[in-house]
């Protein structure tokens, strides 16, 4: 029973299918042929579109029970008249049942359906009128025809309407929007309603035919249960899950090759093979084989003006040719361009032999030694110095002058607070000036020219030591308040009128006297005293007598009125002496060297070799480790005591003798003054870091003094607290340079 029912159902399905087919293919249904006949016709119609469908169908039908097939065909004819309405319902139920048996049939029907559709659409199209095929139409752009029809006749182009006309036409025509121009056939095609629907569906992204159901229930084509030989039931092989051995081997090989350098990935671009033909050979040959081969000099290549028929601009005018005659023979151009109408008319070259001879000379006499010329920018050789602007303040301009002396001012000294200035001159006077106003406060007169003045470094004791000839005077300036004056008077007074202090010595080296005329103390020495230097504590002072030989340098003590000789043997002619600003070290400079002695241990610590012809002056940096030495030959040496006994820097800036050098007490400045009437100001920074060398920067040349008797600036001293420089000139003026 069941089988029967199934069969029935199957038949009904088939009916419905066939009906569908018939509906769409009325020509076939009308004929009402047998199913058997129908099938080949189907396959025929299919064959042009998809020939593969035919064979499975056939094979499948063989699989099926043949009777069933026939049944279907019979029932088909029976059910013909019963109408399609009932059939459709059957189909629905059939599909719901999900019977696999029907699949094949259904597919068949759908296949046939498709085939019919295709043929249908192709039937819709009018056969192409033009037979040119798929060639670019622009080939016919300039032709009168657009192609050929089936008979091989030319299809003429329609007469072109001009734009305005066509526009007007299109505006008038209500159906214009439906028209499409077919370029291929050169005609306008009106889109039918059906086509329009189709286009609309396509635009919406739907299937073109309304009756196509894109969401049809899934149908499994393959019949798994009945298949005797399954297509494949094998499990996935293991090799699909493990990495390939051969691949990895290949990779290893490549990696190795890359590592070995056999495969180069970033190949450098090949350099161009051509070279500069007219370039200088020498460089290339030198590069090539490193031989010091010097090629012969090349003769000059001919230019345009040496052409037999040069352009007019190369031809000199007669005036120019005449002017050549006035030139020196060497400057005269060797060749005067001329024009010839043809090569034939060129005369023989007069200088041919001469030129060859000169060329030979060139070759013969060309230098055979390569000159190594290093191309260095001289600017780059200069040391990098900080800008002067960053090193401010330093003295720049002269604002104040201290006038009053009548002869060269030899020595100046500034009081420790910077309020007063003492100056000694060759006119035999010592003057005290007010720094601020330039007012001369006091004058002492002596019989002999004053050699040196030195202000006591203590602010409380404004006294001045002055060396005049063989004598040294300690003068009370009378400045300061009453208490200080009292103290000074006590200090400068002593009971024993003449005190030969050097009891051990037979000859008195120096004798102390009360000097009533100048209200001070007079020390008489046996030789001319050239300089006086105070110890920082203001009690001791040293004097230098260049002619004093073994007793050339003495140290006096003011409070005890005591004189002592230095316990060192002097070598050479002493020039000046200095106390170390902080330590118990005493510097004596002779004409060639500077020696540092330890006063406590009484021994030589260091000998600085200046290498100068004659030392003129010396100054110690307030830190005590750096010394500058000025020389008569205009050189200034900077010694770093920690570094070496040789100068750290030698500055050769003055063309004439350096008369004095000075360090500033607090600012990193030092100055030198010279007989060339200038004073130089330098920045001299000493770093507390021992690894860093002192920085020396020349800052300013101070001019303004005039030369007198061949002497220029005789002394320079810094203001103790301001970046100001005082210079004493041989023109009897003291100048103050301010920042």
């Amino acid at each position: 029973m069941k089988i029967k029912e199934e069969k029935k159902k199957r038949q009904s399905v088939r009916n419905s299918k066939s009906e569908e087919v018939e509906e769409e293919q009325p020509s076939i249904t009308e004929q009402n042929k047998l199913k058997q006949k129908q099938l080949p016709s189907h396959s025929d119609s299919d064959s042009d579109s998809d020939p593969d469908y035919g064979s499975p169908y056939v094979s499948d039908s063989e699989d099926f029970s043949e009777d069933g097939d026939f049944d279907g065909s019979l029932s088909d004819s029976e059910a013909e008249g019963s109408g399609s309405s009932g059939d459709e319902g059957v189909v629905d139920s059939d599909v719901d049942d999900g019977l696999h048996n029907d699949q094949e049939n259904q597919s068949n029907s759908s296949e046939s359906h498709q085939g019919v559709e295709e043929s249908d659409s192709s039937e819709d199209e009018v056969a192409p009128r033009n037979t040119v095929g798929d060639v670019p139409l622009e080939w016919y752009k300039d032709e009168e025809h657009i192609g050929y029809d089936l008979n091989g006749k030319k299809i003429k182009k329609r007469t072109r309407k001009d734009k305005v006309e066509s526009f007007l036409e299109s505006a008038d025509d209500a159906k214009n929007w439906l028209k499409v121009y077919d370029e291929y056939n050169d005609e306008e095609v009106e889109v039918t309603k059906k086509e329009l629907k189709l286009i609309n569906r396509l635009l919406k992204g739907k299937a073109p035919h309304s009756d196509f159901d894109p969401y049809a229930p899934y149908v499994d084509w393959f019949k798994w249960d009945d298949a005797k030989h399954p297509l494949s039931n094998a499990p996935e092989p293991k090799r699909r899950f493990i990495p390939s051995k051969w691949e990895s081997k290949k990779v290893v090989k490549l990696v190795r090759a890359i590592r070995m350098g056999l495969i180069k990935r970033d190949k450098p671009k090949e350099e161009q093979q051509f070279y500069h033909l007219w370039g200088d050979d020498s460089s290339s040959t030198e590069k090539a084989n490193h031989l010091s081969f010097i090629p012969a000099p090349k003769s000059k290549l001919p230019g345009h003006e040496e052409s037999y028929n040069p352009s007019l601009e190369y031809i000199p005018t007669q005036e120019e040719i005449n002017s050549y005659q006035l030139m020196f023979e060497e400057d005269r151009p060797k060749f005067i361009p001329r024009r010839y109408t043809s090569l034939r008319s060129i005369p023989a070259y007069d200088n041919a032999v001469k030129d060859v001879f000169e060329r030979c000379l060139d070759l013969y006499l060309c230098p055979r030694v390569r000159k190594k010329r290093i191309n260095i920018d001289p600017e780059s050789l200069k040391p990098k110095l900080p800008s002067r602007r960053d090193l401010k303040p330093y003295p720049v301009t002269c604002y104040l002058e201290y006038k009053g002396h009548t002869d060269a001012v030899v020595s100046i000294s500034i009081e420790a607070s910077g309020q007063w200035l003492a100056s000694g001159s060759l006119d035999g006077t010592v003057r005290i000036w007010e720094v601020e106003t330039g007012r001369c406060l006091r004058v002492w007169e002596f019989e002999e020219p004053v050699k040196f003045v030195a202000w006591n470094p203590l602010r409380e004791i404004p006294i001045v030591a002055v060396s005049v000839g063989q004598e040294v005077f300690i003068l009370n300036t009378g400045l300061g308040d009453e208490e200080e004056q009292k103290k000074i008077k006590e200090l400068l007074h002593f009971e024993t009128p003449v005190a030969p202090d050097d009891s051990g010595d037979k000859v008195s080296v120096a004798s102390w006297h009360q000097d009533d005329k100048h209200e001070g103390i007079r020390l008489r020495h046996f030789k001319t005293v050239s300089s006086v230097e105070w110890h920082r504590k203001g009690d001791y002072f040293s004097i230098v007598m260049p002619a004093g030989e073994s007793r050339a340098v003495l140290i006096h003590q003011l409070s005890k009125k005591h004189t002592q000789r230095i316990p060192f043997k002097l070598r050479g002619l002493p020039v000046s002496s200095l106390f170390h600003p902080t330590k118990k070290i005493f510097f004596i400079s002779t004409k060639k060297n500077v020696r540092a002695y330890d006063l406590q241990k009484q021994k030589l610590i260091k000998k600085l070799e200046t290498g100068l012809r004659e030392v003129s002056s010396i100054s110690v940096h307030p830190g005590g480790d750096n010394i500058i030495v000025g020389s008569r030959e205009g050189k200034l040496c900077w010694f770093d005591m920690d570094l070496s006994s040789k100068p750290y820097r030698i500055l050769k800036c003055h063309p004439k003798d350096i008369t004095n050098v000075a360090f500033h007490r607090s600012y990193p400045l030092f100055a030198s003054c010279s007989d060339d009437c200038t004073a130089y100001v330098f920045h001299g920074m000493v770093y507390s870091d021992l690894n860093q060398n002192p920085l020396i920067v020349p800052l300013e040349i101070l001019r303004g003094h005039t030369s007198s008797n061949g002497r220029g600036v005789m002394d320079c001293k810094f203001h103790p607290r301001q970046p100001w420089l005082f210079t004493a000139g041989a023109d009897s003026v003291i100048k103050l340079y301010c920042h």
Partner: protein
Amino acid sequence: MDIDGVNEEENSRRVQVRFVTKLKPPMTVPPLPIAIPSNLTRLGLSTLVNNLIQNGNPDWNTQPFDFLIDGELVRMSLDKFLLAKSISAEKILEIEYIKAVAPRKEEEPSLHDDWVSSVDGSDPRFIVTGCYDSLARVWKAAGECTHILEGHSDVIASVGVINRKGVEGITVATASKDCTLRLWKFDTEDSINDPIRIRAFKILRGHAKSVQCVAAQNTGDMVCSGSWDSMIKLWQTNDSQSDGDLVSIKKRKGNDQADESQLEGEAVSTLVGHTQCVSSVVWPQQETIYSASWDHSIRLWDAETGKNSSDIFCTKVLNCLDVGGESSALIAAGGSDPILRIWDPRKPGTSAPVFQFSSHTSWISACKWHDKSWFHLVSSSYDGKVMLWDLRTAWPLAVIESHKDKVLCADCSAFLLEFLCCECQSHLNYSDNLMWSSQHKVQYLH
């Protein structure tokens, strides 16, 4: 010729201007816009305004005027000024004119025997000068010395008149390089031909170095002084012996002077903070003291507590200081360079000067604000010039070059509206030097 004239006319562009003024009616002009050639300078403008006034008022005596455009004095031709200030010449330009301030006449110099170090003309009745011969002098008029204040043993560095309210007599303070200050009292009423020599009634001791400057409080109770020992000390000025801290010393002089009682005073308080010489002090208000020093700083002190309230740092040594100008707040100072600088301490966050005047060629020795004017100040320099400045222009209004050597001090007096200056001329030899000082009175109307 005609064509040339036309061209010239075309070349000089014309500007529409209107003259306005705050001056009183005889000096006003109708406020109608007029077109004037743009190449006019101050002189041209001045004659123009004078002519305009003369039109309305025939018996008008011409006098110079100065012109302000946007609060700045016109010191070049009008078109250049407009170009420099990028003012449109299309609009009607408002030019305010004021009376030109210029020194009128120089009076007879008051001769001294030595350099004059300081001058004070703040009292209308007299002028006090301090001199390098360690005497201070009181002058009633030019060359008319009424009092000589003697007693200092060294150069007088600074003088200051103490204005005490309700006290008839005049008190003067002097600071000297002998490390003391002295206070003097005298009356100006008695007129005698010969100058009276008077002695100080009080000696103020305490500075360890020479005293450089002195300034009195405006009430007159206190003076402050700056010294080379880098301290500022405040002193009482009263002469009552009842004060406990004052020591009265009877001094009998060896010479023929009569017995005199001289008080000795000690400092009330000391302001410590400067590291170098205090070169100038000003005490304009009850509570604030301004000081300038060689350590390149200007400090403001609270007089009550003695605390340093604020600093202004300059890069140069400062010699002189004055406070004045707009609401008495601007600080003018000059020093070891030819630039007169003016600071505004009210301006926050900057220590840059608001004005810099640099026409001098040497150190500036003194600067003084005009008491009544916000804009005018006087400076003197070692180049021998005294300059009158207006804040509204970068050029000096007037330059007085009658001195041959350094000008050490200058002052502009309050009520006489004059300014005085004194100077020195040094000779080569100190012993027989011929030193003189001159004193000029220059009237200017206001």
